[in-house]
């Protein structure tokens, strides 16, 4: 257990509050919020394995090539997003505080590529994630909402994220998260059946699919036919073992790509995510993209 943000002063063997041997704790570590009094107190862990940034060390935050994403440079680089709800963290991730010229602090949350496939894709070097401020995203397979929260940071208050998750246990965590972030719309429903939640979703610009099901290509295409605008984009993460664990990974990726192409989901990039996971790939692409040099259906 690492030092959390609240420090209740307990003496060595005399546990409990009020036994102030050696003086009352008046810890003024910068991020304490009144010794744990008051709501909104945050229990954050200081270090995440693999990020190597200690709280309080000098960090420089610069924008990433992708809009809405930032890079924090210090001893080790980290991918960060600007926190939409300052003061709240989702999964004990670290936060980085940067002082502006006008003395206000901007809060960034560290994005862990080991936990999030999108972060992994960005660090591997994808050309375009299509998710930027103001965009509407449909996220299939939202799970507890870790990646959803970062996407919600990126799209900001103008955009919105429709998070679909079937499991009730993860759904509860997702809903708690969505209560704090008003641009996340939680939908606890099976993604195989977009007709069931068609009343809750508008037209989106990007679909992000991380469902790890054997029929995920069909799931994606069905949802796209309902909700993805023409000229919209998608990202699907393919776990080779969940499609077919007997054949080679490359073959699986090819099969999935062909399935997608049949449904007018044209892939533009295929990325192998080998740094953090095994036998995973990410496919980015577009939906009903206007075809060049075709006489009849040029839009």
């Amino acid at each position: 257990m690492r030092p959390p943000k609240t420090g209740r002063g307990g003496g060595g063997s005399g546990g409990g509050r009020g036994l102030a041997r050696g003086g009352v704790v008046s810890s003024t570590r910068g991020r304490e919020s009144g010794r744990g009094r008051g709501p909104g107190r945050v229990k954050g862990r200081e270090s995440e394995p693999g990020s190597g940034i200690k709280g309080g060390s000098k960090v420089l935050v610069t924008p990433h090539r992708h809009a809405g994403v930032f890079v924090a440079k210090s001893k080790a680089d980290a991918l960060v997003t600007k926190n939409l709800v300052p003061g709240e963290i989702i999964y004990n991730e670290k936060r980085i505080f940067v002082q502006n010229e006008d003395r206000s602090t901007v809060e960034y949350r560290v994005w862990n590529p080991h936990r999030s496939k999108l972060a992994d894709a960005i660090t591997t070097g994808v050309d375009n994630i299509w998710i930027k401020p103001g965009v509407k995203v449909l996220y299939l397979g939202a799970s507890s909402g870790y990646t959803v929260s970062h996407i919600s940071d990126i799209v900001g208050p103008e955009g919105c994220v429709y998070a679909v998750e079937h499991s009730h246990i993860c759904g509860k965590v997702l809903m708690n998260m969505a209560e704090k972030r008003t641009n996340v719309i939680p939908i606890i429903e099976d993604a195989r059946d977009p007709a069931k939640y068609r009343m809750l979703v508008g037209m989106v610009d990007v679909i992000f699919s991380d469902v790890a099901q054997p029929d995920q290509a069909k799931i994606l295409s069905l949802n796209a036919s309902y909700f993805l605008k023409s000229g919209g984009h998608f990202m699907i993460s393919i776990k080779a073992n969940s499609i077919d664990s007997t054949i080679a990974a490359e073959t699986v990726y090819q099969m999935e790509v062909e399935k997608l192409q049949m449904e007018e989901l044209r892939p533009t990039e295929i990325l192998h995510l080998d740094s953090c996971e095994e036998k995973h790939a990410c496919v980015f692409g577009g939906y009903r993209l206007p075809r060049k040099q075709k006489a009849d259906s040029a839009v």
Partner: protein
Amino acid sequence: MAMYVLYESSSGYGLFEVHGLDEIGQNTEAVRTSVSDLSRFGRVVQLTAFHPFESALDALNQVNAVSEGVMTDELRSFLELNLPKVKEGKKPKFSLGLAEPKLGSHIFEATKIPCQSNEFVLELLRGVRQHFDRFIKDLKPGDLEKSQLGLAHSYSRAKVKFNVNRVDNMVIQAIFLLDTLDKDINSFAMRVREWYSWHFPELVKIVNDNYLYARVSKMIDDKSKLTEDHIPMLTEVLGDEDKAKEVIEAGKASMGQDLSPLDLINVQTFAQRVMDLADYRKKLYDYLVTKMSDIAPNLAALIGEMVGARLISHAGSLTNLAKCPSSTLQILGAEKALFRALKTRGNTPKYGLIFHSSFIGRASAKNKGRIARYLANKCSIASRIDCFADGATTAFGEKLREQVEERLEFYDKGVAPRKNVDVMKEVIENLQKQDEEGKEPVDASVKKSKKKKAKGEEEEEEVVAMEEDKSEKKKKKEKRKMETAEENEKSEKKKTKKSKAGGEEETDDGHSTKKKKKKSKSSE
């Protein structure tokens, strides 16, 4: 032939009429090109009617019906009102396009409106969805998203059976308020004492309790008016006749100055305030106790409401408390000492907030640490049951408490405590029996509930032991097992869950064989 299209949105139902059907034909490709451009699309499809949902509850009903593919009365009346009448015997000259064929067949059965849901319709609906906010003039930008958000939250909450009563936030807020109140009441009471002492300094030494002091000062008012007649009243408040006499005598020989009636009134009002706050604090404490028994009955039964509430608030939520390992729970609240000890390689603290439960005090100095560890383990179990199990029973908590008592006795006298496996078995057995036989007369139920607690605990222990052996995620598995355990208990009520429980048991071979053995034992 006229064609209409029904679009269900989170703010209401919309009916659109499709013109220029012959022009487009049923060619999806052409439809697509027209869809993307609003002006072209607007010529093809026009809004006939829009029926906004009356209230959030109404919207929730509609979305539930739509997800099932069922037509509600509101939808029916909306359609019948706005579509041309279907005459008996004649073939209707229009058709209604829908996203879902199931809903279509429903509508057709009830109202004889012919429905279709082919690719063409789906393309049209895509267009409607894209440009919906432009069609409905009343909807400001952002309104649609807000209605989607609200509706999605209520729909999802219904899905996960979000129980308002089991929100742990109330407890966390209540315990913070309780602490703040204590501090404030103390400061105010000190102020009353100082203020009134200007008039009657001796009273401070006679009456030590803050609350009593406030009452007495309010009653005495002006000390010069104090006579023997006041003794019964004072006795009633102070509870001691001697003290009352002391007060009267001190009043006669007091060296305090006189206060004007206005000043006295002010002091009195303030004293009244203090008393009111103290009463409120009592009510708040009762509220906290009820809330704890709602959200974490086992934890409350094991270590008491106050300590339990403090643990929950320190961890941040009941789920956080359940997720942390029992070693963390043991020293929750002594973080400063812990990290200091870790950094300087000294001795880490043995207990944190747990120290305030009665058990630690009863153990001898040598055994305090052992009892703290044991208690923390049991608290972990209790909090996990509370967080993830469905029912609100104190069965487990009470049995766990008995176990801690037994352990204390063991340290005192060497009486060997029962094996955990046996205790849990008893609790589960009893809970099962309780469910199967329904309501029992009071005596029998008391006995049985004790047995059931033992059984439940036993299975918990076993479950915990088994999980420690395996390397899977402890939390999820325990949850599942709690669910299966609880589901076994509620055999009659939730038959569907039982089959699920059966399925879950089979997935886990080692555990299932043991469980089956236990079940056969209990049935014998």
